[in-house]
């Protein structure tokens, strides 16, 4: 079993839709949960991260962690064509190593 699993997509939604991107993980020792956005042929950029369970909101983005079910979500409200990218979840233990999912490709069409 992979440590982190993501549906590769593509997920195609109309502009203005609410998007839900999800990851599952297997290691209960993970404590920090990162979300990265990667545009085509670019390096990943950090969107946000959460610690332990709960929600964190930043503008149109909300990260949610449910440690009891080992489930991570990223919600995007009022999605825009500029949100079209691959979204990578990356949990980590209390060390420096991130464990990346394969990413979900999101397409937002006008």
């Amino acid at each position, binding site marked *: 079993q992979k440590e*982190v699993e993501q549906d*590769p997509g593509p997920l195609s939604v109309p502009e203005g839709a609410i998007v839900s991107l999800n990851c599952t993980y297997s290691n209960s020792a993970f404590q*920090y949960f*990162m979300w*990265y956005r990667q545009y085509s*042929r*670019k*390096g*990943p*950029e*950090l969107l946000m*991260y959460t*610690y332990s369970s709960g929600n964190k909101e930043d503008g149109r983005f909300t990260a949610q962690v449910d440690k009891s079910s080992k489930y991570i979500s990223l919600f995007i409200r009022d999605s825009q064509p500029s949100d079209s990218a691959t979204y*990578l979840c990356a949990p*980590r233990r209390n060390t*420096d*190593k*991130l464990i*990346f*999912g*394969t*990413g979900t490709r999101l397409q937002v069409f006008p």
Partner: protein
Amino acid sequence: SQTIHQWPATLVQPVGSPLSLECTVEGTSNPNLYWYRQAAGRGLQLLFYSVGIGQISSEVPQNLSASRPQDRQFILSSKKLLLSDSGFYLCAWNGGTYEQYFGPGTRLTVT
């Protein structure tokens, strides 16, 4: 502010040729540095990380090597490239916090 540079941006090399990719970080000192590879349709694979000059940890056995000759410089090398070495190589750093920040990447095609 901190900036991370990688070069070259793209590279096409024949099988069996040597490789040298460079990463430098500006605006910080004593960063932790990382090399990742992203193959088409696959996730990021951690190759090497370094917590200081001359200190390299390898995550995956392969024909690649890494060196850190200066505090903010990280180099990825190979003596003889294989076709399977093709991919998108990313350098990342963090400064003791939980976030990692990535460079723009080098796209390597081995022919």
